């Protein structure tokens, strides 16, 4: 399995600060995706980065991918209380996305 592994497991920051979380995986991928999950709800897609891309931006999100190190990072800038959620990376190979246990982010007002 090439399940993504997120680090840290949990993160607590002040509103307005940046939040960074990392993801490592084990085998080759087609792309890597990041998702958010609010407590008790389904996952919502945030961003997809292809294996030939190194960096991608979407609003306050910045994702990097280093295929040589088999790692990715997600940066959320200028965090808000509404960013409180769990964040999951999902390496994709063919039809399968493999999710890790996620990083739980708490944004304090």
């Amino acid at each position: 399995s090439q399940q993504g592994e997120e680090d840290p497991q949990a993160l607590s920051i002040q509103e307005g600060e940046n939040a960074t979380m990392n993801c490592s995986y084990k085998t080759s991928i087609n792309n890597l995706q990041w998702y958010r999950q609010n407590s008790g709800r389904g996952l919502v897609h945030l961003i997809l980065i292809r294996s030939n891309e190194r960096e991608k931006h979407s609003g306050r999100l910045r994702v990097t991918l280093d295929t040589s190190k088999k790692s990715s990072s997600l940066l959320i800038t200028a965090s808000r209380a509404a960013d409180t959620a769990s964040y999951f990376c999902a390496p994709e190979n063919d039809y399968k996305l493999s999710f890790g246990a996620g990083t739980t982010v708490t944004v304090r007002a």
Partner: protein
Amino acid sequence: DVKVTQSSRYLVKRTGEKVFLECVQDMDHENMFWYRQDPGLGLRLIYFSYDVKMKEKGDIPEGYSVSREKKERFSLILESASTNQTSMYLCASSFNRQGRAGELFFGEGSRLTVL
């Protein structure tokens, strides 16, 4: 907006019962997936389907089966529920983009408790 609807948000069943979890999507997606989510273990893929009447085993298919008779509907079946199948079950769907899963759209989840 894409909508993935799971039939039940909460279910309580007894050991040995047959359990059906239904999932319907309204975006004509080719791919559909069933995951289970457990604390500390993340989401684990049970089964997926990339076309009507097609199914593929995921990482943890034991104790489960699936049915996809129509494109919009993907059912997860627990033939004989056991307590270790107590979990949150998440259904997802996506377009089939050149043999890849693409962006997944998730339902709200079905929390199953087996007593």
